[in-house]
């Protein structure tokens, strides 16, 4: 009895403070650090939903116990989404360079095809490790289900692995990395352009299906908006462009090619920003788990490492670089391509790669926070 009275006297002022705070746009019961006000404003602005604790408290639930089960996926799946995106995007970019690039752009194709295979290699082990019964992974090949993105994903990954592997082998035999014997002569006779088109289709599939996979669930933050697939595929493109330009800036590449990659990177980031903002707006209240600053919610990481540091900042830097670059007179020295290393572009690309990783990480972890939020889950199902 004494305890309850004690609790009551303690709670009364907090309640008042809580109501006052909600009126002054800071809606959390505990005192919150100063910078989260900005994050909360950003969250309301992008999602179009301002958390209203008082009306949310009136919604009915069963002791706030989760209304859906928490996802079982963690770091393996985060890394798979990131690496799979890189593998897919690198392949597609390399194919575009093969099909439409100039002579000096061949280095993009070469680096792209190798990067694709290397990024793809850790994917199957990560996926198998994530299973509850890894030794039974072959059972995935029992069925072919259009309605199940995971089933389609298995077949898509398998097919894409085939294309990525063969293309890298063909590229390697062109480059003489496999030695010179009848096998490599046979391989180098396969035209890369023939592989590029079907391989790219499966590449797009691999880059985008992971977003579809998350959308085809009952987790509110993943399933409310139908933009997660578009967001993931756009991130796959921008991160892989960044990866290839990082590699090219380390090993050295024609300045013209790097300039093309810069422009592609800039455009890809712009599309990713558009996809991300559309996703947040269409997810509305359910995006709270991704952009909110309450415990378990991903807001602080999302805004700093992904949206701010991994997308907006590199995009602004890239814009400045392109403006500065276009003012300089372009020297056309046809004999002996001038190669370039390092530069600001390296920083931009590394930031984009960081953003791509944190996009996967915050979205997957937001699923955990979202599944624990019974009120939003039930609100989402009211339709």
């Amino acid at each position, binding site marked *: 009895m004494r305890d309850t009275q004690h609790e009551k006297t303690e709670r009364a002022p907090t309640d008042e403070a809580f109501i006052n705070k909600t009126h002054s746009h800071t809606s959390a019961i505990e005192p919150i650090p100063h910078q989260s006000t900005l994050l909360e404003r950003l969250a309301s602005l992008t999602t179009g939903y301002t958390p209203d604790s008082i009306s949310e408290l009136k919604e009915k639930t069963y002791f706030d116990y989760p209304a859906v089960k928490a996802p079982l996926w963690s770091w393996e799946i985060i890394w798979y989404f990131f690496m799979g995106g890189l593998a897919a995007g690198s392949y597609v970019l390399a194919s575009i360079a093969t099909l439409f690039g100039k002579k000096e752009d061949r280095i993009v194709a070469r680096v792209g095809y190798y990067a694709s295979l290397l990024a793809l290699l850790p994917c199957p082990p990560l996926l198998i490790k994530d299973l509850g019964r890894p030794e039974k992974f072959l059972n995935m090949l029992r069925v072919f289900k259009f309605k199940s993105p995971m089933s389609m994903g298995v077949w898509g990954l398998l097919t894409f692995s085939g294309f990525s592997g063969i293309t890298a082998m063909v590229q390697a035999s062109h480059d003489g990395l496999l030695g010179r014997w009848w096998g490599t002569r046979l391989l180098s006779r396969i035209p890369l352009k023939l592989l590029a088109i079907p391989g790219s289709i499966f590449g*797009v599939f691999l880059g985008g299906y992971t977003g579809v996979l998350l959308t085809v669930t*009952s987790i509110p933050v993943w399933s409310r908006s139908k933009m997660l*697939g578009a967001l993931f595929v756009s991130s796959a493109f921008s991160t892989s462009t960044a990866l290839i330009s990082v590699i090219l800036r380390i090993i050295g590449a024609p300045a013209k090619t790097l300039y093309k990659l810069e422009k592609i990177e800039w455009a890809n980031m712009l599309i990713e920003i558009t996809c991300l903002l559309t996703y947040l707006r269409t997810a509305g209240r359910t995006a709270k788990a991704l952009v909110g600053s309450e415990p378990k919610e991903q807001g602080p990481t999302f805004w700093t490492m992904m949206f701010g540091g991994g997308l907006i900042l590199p995009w602004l830097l890239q814009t400045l670089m392109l403006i500065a670059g276009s003012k300089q007179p372009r020297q056309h020295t046809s004999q002996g391509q001038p190669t370039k290393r390092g530069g600001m572009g390296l920083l931009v690309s590394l930031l984009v790669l960081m953003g791509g990783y944190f996009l996967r990480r915050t979205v997957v972890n937001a699923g955990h926070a979202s599944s624990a939020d019974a009120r939003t889950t039930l609100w989402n199902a009211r339709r």
Partner: protein
Amino acid sequence: MSDHNGQVSATPITERVQQLTQLLAPFKKEKPLPEQPKMGFFTDTSLCIGCKACEIACKQWNQLPATTPEWTGTSYDNTQSLGATTWRHVQFIEQIERRIPHVNASDEKVLKLPLFEMDTPVPQMGMDLSALPELAGTPTGTALPFFSTDRWLMRSDVCKHCANAPCQEACPTGAIIHTEFDTVYVQQDICNGCGYCVVACPFDVIARDSEGDGQAHKCTLCYDRLKDGMKPACAKACPTDSIQFGEVEQLKRDAQERLGFLQERGLTDARLYGADDKILEGGLNSFFLLLDEPETYNLPSNPARPSNHVLPTSLGVIVTAAVMGLIGTFFFKQE
């Protein structure tokens, strides 16, 4: 190796063939069993007394291990949710000061308990009961004047055995199937514990047994008992017939009748959940009679069917990829 007839070469070959067929067994498509009438549960929460006999009977029959007890401090429900080793779960919902009499809603005095202090005359022996004023907002004929309107709702939760089950649609191995009784069943020899069904289920039902065999588990509607023409263990153990088992069509008719009866008696908030075809576009083979809004029981009122998201999301992928591909092509073609 040689058998009794001394035929040396035949045995290893037949053995190998046997091994191969065993290895390929999960890939073999069996002929479906002959269709049986649809079977399901009708859980009538108005009859539930919260005895948890269903939880225990289920654990016993299915040989499920007990979960580590954890005091929730919220109610008598220390199970909290369904899980890999809990296939029936009884909820306890305490609704205190739920329905404040409408007439005196503004009067502060009415809110205070006990109600004996109110001006309402307390019924006594030999009094004319019909002269007593009835508390507004209380179901006619059910409330005695000295009863408060507080109530205690109980519900035995279970897998809904959806006609269009999201877990079954999500399953990438084909481990989750609809049986010949149209119940949803996880074939344990096939499930590899990918965990996709866990996030697909909109009802917080199916779970992976991470401490056990690492596979997905949920209510089987006692498939083994069904095969032998027996009632599922929970329905058999239920002492109040709150859990009824039978053919879905018949159960749905019974449920309508029961709902009419309750509404006639003044329980206007009573409703059926999953008995029509609205939820997940096909209804639930294991449905409920609720006394309040579904959200009170943590049930989603109209959950989306996850597989409907495949097409719109894929379209988004294709459009975005096409735009980005064109931009890449344009910049690469530039001098």
